[in-house]
């Protein structure tokens, strides 16, 4: 039994251990930021590698905690994303006074997400969710001297509290009508009566808040803009991915009896999310706001994939998240380096960027093309497979709508590329000295963006792990 816990909980235990080590380092004598950062990055690499070592299927604590090959893989993806973010924020964290706090907060949040993904019970799920959200609010406030940062933290904590309340209300309704919170038992008791449907709507609204689907997206842009870039990328990639993993688990495994209902809900959410996300992304000049709205639109495409409710549906979601990690983090990586070294965060600042920083420009361009879904980048495959999964339902209205919206999104990504390559600027961003470790992170992202798509083994592996309705 003890051995079982050690094996099945090993990713969580590793994170918890790391958090404790960091606390002790903090208590001990002062060390230079560089040595701490190098140590943490090394540990994160080991943590990621250890995650891949083995996977087993099982459950702990009476089904509260589940694990299987897919869940282990999902957690590895999040570990990978955290590692990349950590490497990219090197320049920013080096100057910070509170390096260790940053890692404690993000690691705690990640730990919460792990429990959430593994949850086999709505209570456990809720615990994990809260554990992942609250540290993030503190992290959003990390630039303590900046007003915008505090504002972002306030908005994040208020909107999360609100969405958590809605979620909790849905959970309690569900408990009221079924008498259980355990996923495996819940399915048999769901019959689609009005209270359950209401509970489901509350639940999905809570989720929509977390993944910033329209009409629950209003907090996103402000929080993304105000928070430090590292936290923004954490929010936009890791926390969204974790919630989406859980959502697909719930929809495909628990709410199967009302699949036709949630299909409709997803399609409506997806259409609204894509449209609004795109329309707002069109006119942004702040790079972080731009990425915020574009990531809203991406969530819309993800929802279309999920609505396919097949094995291809969940596979394409996880595949897309992997690609999204690489492409979005590559974009955020460049923005974070530029912001840390020059303080510039506007798209118009990037005019003429190619003349001074060709390497960073290509990284950013490839990332944007991947986000736009242009081959040969992986984003093309990711988006195409999401749409294919959605098209399996035979509802071509939404597919046509999404396809046309892809063109709109293409426009705003191209606008950024245009600024980088084609626009003249008298005072472009000067040539930047990118820290080696951030460079490596960017190269990893670019390699990921190219390889993940063309090498079909990645998709086939994910497909073999996935499950359908």
């Amino acid at each position, binding site marked *: 039994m003890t051995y079982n816990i050690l094996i099945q909980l090993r990713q969580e235990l590793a994170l918890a251990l790391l958090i404790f080590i960091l606390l002790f380092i903090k208590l001990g004598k002062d060390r230079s930021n560089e040595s701490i950062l190098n140590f943490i990055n090394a540990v994160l690499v080991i943590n990621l590698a250890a995650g891949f070592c083995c996977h087993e299927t099982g459950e702990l604590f009476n089904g509260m905690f589940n694990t299987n090959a897919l869940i282990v893989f999902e957690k590895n993806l999040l570990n990978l994303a955290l590692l990349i973010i950590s490497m990219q924020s090197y320049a920013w964290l080096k100057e910070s006074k509170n390096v260790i706090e940053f890692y404690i907060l993000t690691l705690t949040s990640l730990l919460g997400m792990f429990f959430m993904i593994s949850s086999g019970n709505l209570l456990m799920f809720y615990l994990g969710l809260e554990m992942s959200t609250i540290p993030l609010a503190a992290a959003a406030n990390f630039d303590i001297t900046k007003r915008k940062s505090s504002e972002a933290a306030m908005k994040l904590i208020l909107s999360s509290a609100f969405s958590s309340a809605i979620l909790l209300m849905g959970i309690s309704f569900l408990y009221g009508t079924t008498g259980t919170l355990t996923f495996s038992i819940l399915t048999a008791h769901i019959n689609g009566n009005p209270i359950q449907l209401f509970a489901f709507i509350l639940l999905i609204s809570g989720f929509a808040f977390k993944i910033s689907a329209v009409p629950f997206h209003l907090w996103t842009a402000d929080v993304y803009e105000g928070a430090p870039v590292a936290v923004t990328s954490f929010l936009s990639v890791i926390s969204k991915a974790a919630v989406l993993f859980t959502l697909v688990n719930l929809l495909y495994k628990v709410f199967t009896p009302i699949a036709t209902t949630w299909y409709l809900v997803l399609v409506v959410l997806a259409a609204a999310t894509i449209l609004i996300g795109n329309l707002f992304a069109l006119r942004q000049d702040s790079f972080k706001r731009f990425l915020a709205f574009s990531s809203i639109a991406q969530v819309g495409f993800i929802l279309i994939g999920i609505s396919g409710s097949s094995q291809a549906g969940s596979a394409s979601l996880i595949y897309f998240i992997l690609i999204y990690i690489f492409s979005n983090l590559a974009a955020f990586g460049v923005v974070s380096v530029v912001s840390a070294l020059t303080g510039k965060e506007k798209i118009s600042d990037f005019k003429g960027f190619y003349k001074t920083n060709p390497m960073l420009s290509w990284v950013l361009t490839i990332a944007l093309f991947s986000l736009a879904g*242009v081959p040969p980048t992986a984003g093309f495959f990711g988006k195409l497979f999401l749409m294919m999964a959605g098209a399996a339902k035979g509802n071509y209205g939404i*597919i*046509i709508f999404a396809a046309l919206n*892809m*063109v709109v999104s293409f426009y705003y990504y191209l606008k950024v590329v245009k600024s980088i390559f*084609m*626009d003249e600027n008298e005072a472009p961003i000067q040539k930047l000295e990118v820290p080696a470790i951030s460079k490596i992170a960017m190269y990893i992202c670019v390699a990921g963006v190219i390889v993940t798509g063309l090498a079909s083994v990645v*998709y086939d592996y994910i497909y*073999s792990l996935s499950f359908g309705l």
Partner: protein
Amino acid sequence: MNLTLLILVPFITAVLILLARGLQQIRVIGLIGSLIQLGLAGWLLKSFLAARAAGNNAAHLFESNQTWFKALHINYHIGIDGIALAMILLTSVIVVAGILVSWTMDKLSKEYFFLLVLLSMGAYGFFISLDLFTLFFFLEVAVIPKFLLIGIWGSGDKTKSAMKLALMLMAGSALVMVGLFGIYYNTHTFDMVQITQQGIPVGVQKFFFPFAFLGFGVFAALFPFHTWVPDGHASAPTAASMFLAGISMKLGGYGCLRIAALMPDAAHTYSWIIILLATIAIIYGAFATMMQTDLKYINAYSSISHCGFVILGIGMLNKTSINGAVIQMVSHGLMTALFFAAIGMIYSRTHTRMVAQLGGLLKAMPFISTVFVIAGLCSLGLPGFSGFVAEMTVFMGSWQNPDGAYRLATILSGASIVVTAVYILRATGRAIMGPISAEHALLSDATWNEKLAAVLLIAGILVIGLAPFLINHLIMPSTDAIMLQVGKVTLIK
């Protein structure tokens, strides 16, 4: 022989270009790479003809089928028939010419040649694909290089043109994507050979044909989706214009042809719309050209008109007309590339493309002027050049259709040739003949690289123009195979 080489060679060339240092190394690598491509294409032609002569009547030769995405039944399935081979030959000739013409490109030359080679890779991949997914993949691969080529190295209102072109082409491919999904979910495969064998239900064809056909139509400048053509071509640097009109627009025509063969019922149902749009494009393009004063705009608008013949030939759905459409694709590719090359040479010397500001160029640069005149004569369909063969075949095919409205479309399209003659001769007369201005009198004639590029393209035009049986011999069996598909339906009717 392995067709993947056609993708690998450009890929390796592109990588080597990235590693190279200095303009000299870059352009030499680019040229060698493109010459290897040309050699490969020639060798392919030789082995193709040898295999056919040996009695190998398989629909596609050099086939290779490998699983790509197993879970989704997506295969990397490649193979060529005569039509694809003609397109590959066209591509390889234009790539060599394009690289030669860009010999002195010194602004960001590494990126420039890299993108040109990438564009050619997309085109090769497109033409060898027998799987709709790979076809679509390569179609989109070819879009981004165009955007960057026009936006960075272009002239005039380049960013707007680049944006317009990229967005319209992307919209086209979004439509294609919807059409492909429709096919996939009703046949459970992307494989064109399999789809041809098992057929697509008629209802499905009728719903999804417009998406796929119009989508490819955007690439082929089908009216009313032609608006990216003039701006895009006019703003693009010379080699990019050549690639754009010579290769990229052919992706659209080729795609339309394949879609019509895959969905013959729908093609018959909608053929009157296709012909209507094509006729409008032909006439509108011709008259719009008359109003242009910029040489590049003249050629761009006339491209709309000429590509209309491709669509017209496909829309008529009979053997001769489809043959004509394919010849027209090759012919227009060569001719328009030659035209853009000549315009580029003139522009790089005189720094103007306005017809009114030019004159008497024949005196200062006889070679370039001759090239210009040849391209013009080919464009207006003078016998002996490829344009005549192509357009004549399309007309002969479309006249076979006894329906009155179809006859009318043929007559109207035929009349457009007169208009073509007007604008070509007028531009030639003003720019090439007449008195030369003092500042232009001292300009130098073509350099060796420009001469080589022009000779290569002219050779292609003359081969088709003087010995049309050669290309007919190449593509005829493939059009027969397409007609077998399309004909099935006619019999049922």
